């Protein structure tokens, strides 16, 4: 029940008091689009991409650089640095997307990619609109991680290692990882849009293994943000304590119960439940293909009135935030469920044009080698008014899922499954014994409608979400949430 890292809490009605707002400004006009691609080159690429027709063309240029390292067996290892530049060009004609990408940012190569994307088309040339001024307001970064000596990053991992091993002799192994990524992107399209973004993300993860005789348990915790190295100013070692504590707790666990019962889901990473069971089903590509249980449910009551939820790509410095999405559209805060009523889907460019609406700034891609698809940014259930302790006290026999190892959903059927990494039995309104090996399974619509209490606490956590073979950083959040009945799959029948 910890508060989020910076103690931020979104207001239930979502005003901007607590989170603040990020204005999307217009940069000084100039001939140069960015460091990545010259505006004249961009214009030429777009023109060539439309040489054989098409109603839309886009060039997306990127430069990324990153570094990762790990500590294992108290030894710094797997030190790795990587860098890539490249561009992707797409042309859309009659609903079909033609896409080509190249390594490097040599103008001749990018123009060749444009020719390749246009090669399959045989219509009349169309003309791109002149490019406008550069837009985009990157997230503020205080300390660029690339400028921090590698030894300092190694020291951070050593601190995590010491902290976890200090938790007791039963912690027999500990690994931790550090990752930093800097990504500059620039997008120009035939509608005259010109946007850029400069993104810096850092993340650390800790995993502890505890052993007692033949029992082996693991505990994990992460900390990450769209932010610089200043993220680690405030006791980053606590994630090692948390990972060790979880593993040690599980040593005393008994097998999880199996059957249907009330489930209280913890704050923070508990939000992955909402991400999986609702968020993915609201992505417009699933909706338009009829592959979502939320098709035709816009305007309908899908949850009890106590539930309001958002996707917000501009939460300051949050893991899933960006200045603009990967199509150059400013990220925004989208209320998807208001008092239990479904009121919005999440759109990228292609799906928004198809529905005749505006993009919600959810067009994201893993890199210049990928086509953008509608993706969540930071998705969360807004705090409610229930006290977490009271939510548990009302349960005679149930399950308390504090944290998940991950989850998966089939958006078409709504069937989902979540692996519980830290869970407890609730007996007589009290959290009693820890359980191992629990899985929650259910169906999205039923589970969403069965949420009968939302806690007044709140926390955001970081995740990496996979869809269509692309991995993007996403934030998940919520306070405690109670589901009246859900299937717990354990080993104890």
């Amino acid at each position, binding site marked *: 029940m910890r508060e989020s890292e910076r103690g931020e809490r979104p207001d239930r009605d979502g005003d901007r008091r607590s989170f603040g707002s990020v204005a999307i400004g217009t940069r000084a006009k100039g001939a140069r689009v960015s460091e990545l691609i010259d505006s004249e080159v961009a214009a030429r690429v777009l023109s060539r991409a439309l040489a054989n027709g098409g109603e839309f063309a886009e060039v997306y240029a990127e430069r990324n650089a990153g570094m990762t390292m790990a500590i294992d067996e108290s*030894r710094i290892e797997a030190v*790795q640095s990587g860098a890539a530049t490249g561009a992707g060009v797409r042309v859309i004609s009659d609903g079909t997307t033609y896409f080509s990408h190249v390594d490097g940012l040599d103008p001749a190569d990018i123009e060749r990619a444009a020719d390749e994307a246009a090669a399959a088309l045989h219509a009349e040339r169309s003309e791109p609109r002149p490019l406008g001024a550069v837009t985009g307001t990157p997230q503020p970064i205080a300390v660029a991680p690339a400028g921090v000596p590698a030894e300092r990053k190694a020291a951070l991992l050593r601190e995590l290692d010491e902290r976890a091993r200090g938790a007791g002799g039963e912690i027999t192994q500990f690994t931790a990882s550090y990752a930093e990524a800097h990504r500059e992107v620039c997008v120009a399209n035939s509608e005259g849009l010109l946007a850029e973004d400069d993104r810096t993300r850092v993340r650390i993860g800790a995993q502890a293994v505890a052993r007692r005789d033949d029992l082996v348990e693991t505990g994990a915790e992460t900390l990450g943000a769209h932010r610089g190295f200043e993220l680690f100013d405030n006791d980053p070692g606590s994630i090692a304590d948390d990972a060790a504590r979880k593993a040690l707790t599980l040593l005393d666990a008994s097998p999880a119960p*199996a059957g249907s019962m009330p489930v209280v889901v913890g704050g923070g990473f508990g939000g992955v439940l909402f991400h999986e069971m609702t968020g993915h089903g609201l992505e417009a590509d699933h909706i338009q293909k009829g592959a979502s249980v939320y098709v035709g449910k816009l305007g309908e009551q899908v949850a009890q009135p106590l539930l309001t939820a958002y996707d917000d790509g501009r939460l300051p410095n949050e893991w899933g935030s960006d200045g603009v999405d990967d199509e150059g559209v400013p990220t925004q805060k989208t209320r998807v469920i208001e008092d239990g009523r479904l009121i919005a889907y999440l759109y990228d460019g292609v799906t928004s044009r198809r529905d005749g609406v505006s993009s919600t700034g959810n067009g994201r891609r893993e890199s210049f080698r990928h*086509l953008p698809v509608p993706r969540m940014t930071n998705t969360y259930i807004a705090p409610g008014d229930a006290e977490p302790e009271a939510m548990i006290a009302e349960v005679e026999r149930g399950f308390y899922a504090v944290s998940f190892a*991950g989850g998966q959903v089939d958006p*078409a059927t709504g069937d989902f499954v979540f692996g519980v990494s830290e869970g407890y039995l609730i007996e007589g309104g009290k959290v009693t014994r820890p359980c191992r090996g629990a899985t929650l399974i259910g169906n999205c619509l039923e589970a969403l409608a069965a949420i009968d209490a939302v806690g007044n606490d709140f926390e955001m956590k970081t995740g990496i979400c996979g869809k269509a073979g692309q991995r993007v950083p996403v934030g998940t959040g919520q306070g405690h949430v109670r589901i009246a009945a859900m299937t717990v799959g354990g*080993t104890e029948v």
Partner: protein
Amino acid sequence: MIEAARRAVEAATKAGAGEAEAYAAEDSGREVRVHGGAVESLTAATQRGLGVRAWIGQRVGYAYGTDLSAPGIAGLAERAAEAARVADEDEFAGAPRGVSEGDPPELALSDPTIGEWSTGQLADLALEIERAALGADARIAGVEQAVYADSTERVAIASSSGIEGEYSSSSCYGYLQALAEGEDGRETGLGFGLGRGPAALEPTAIGLEGAERALTMIGAEKPASRACPVVLDPTVAASFIGLIGRGLSAGAVQRGRSPFAGRVGEEVAGEALALHDDGLDPEGFASSPLDAEGVPRRRTTLVEAKTLRTYLYDTYTARRGDAASTGNASRAGYRSQPSVSTSNLVVAPGTLSFAELLREAGEGVLVTDVAGLHSGVNPVSGVFSVGASGRAIRDGELAEPLREFTIASDLVSMLRAVRAVGADARWVPFSGSVKTPSLLIAEMTVAGS
């Protein structure tokens, strides 16, 4: 490619590395996505890049990049050496040695006709997959997506310790997710096929498999919670065998993160199960003459006569475990440094037909799909609980469809409980490259209603 790799090794030595290794890869690929009888997207691209491992004393570092110009390679080599300086010493670190066992075997890993297929023909193939599913039954409401993708790859490896090798391979796959309209909601079904080139794919069979899997699930309900015999179909069995393979890598074992640690020579499986890893299997999609650090691939028996015979090794884990590399270094392209992992995992097929396997099970559950494998399995202890769907087995025959239940056990107990294996072996690419028939597990916990 080999030229670039050689130059990178030289550059790393110049940057202060005592030993160095470079891995260069070039990949051309195409992908077609279709939906509703129309092409949704068409992608064509070539990418290449290079990764350098540098050793300074017993410290190792890695760097990769896409800039293969002379200054690009120099910068990359410099970064690899810098990374090595940050790492701690590891007494087992060091460059792989060349193995003089004669020339690597000739493997036919490429379909030379792959390039003759135009994107238009590939689009037709993907459309045919979709059409086959849509035409299978009136209850098929649509297809979420039908996809064709291929890749032609060239890899070159060079090292300061005398390793030098190069090979090419091609592969392609087609899949679709079919949607069937049930009485209370939609059901999905996955159909897939793979080959060295598009000529090896059977679009109709892929489409029909997806349709069949979706249709079967209509009207599915939760099974009663109990412990009972469970049959895993090849796609599901492959996921579990893939997880077991992860536990059989010496890396996981040496770091105490495998349920199979300390079990070589012990009985770990039912008599019916025999498992090997084969990096040279001509059908296998992970096959190559050399592994990801240039050591020759080979066949390694893992489990036979109930007994665990060995783990899988790369150069580092072999040194550390006082063993020889089994040629199991692998990497996910030039962006990742090599680590030990399975190549092609193969479960020897049995003699029972699928119907006979069901009769052998008697009463129980057939599992045709699992979800949540990445979150529901503890890789250290092997304990798992994952979401599943499938069919009831009653009186040795398939009965009503089942959904929204979990199966739970641990990997070692499950292996020991393998009572029979089918004859219906199939290659499945979802959890590494695995070929396995259906498996009958004597008992597992099923949790439903």
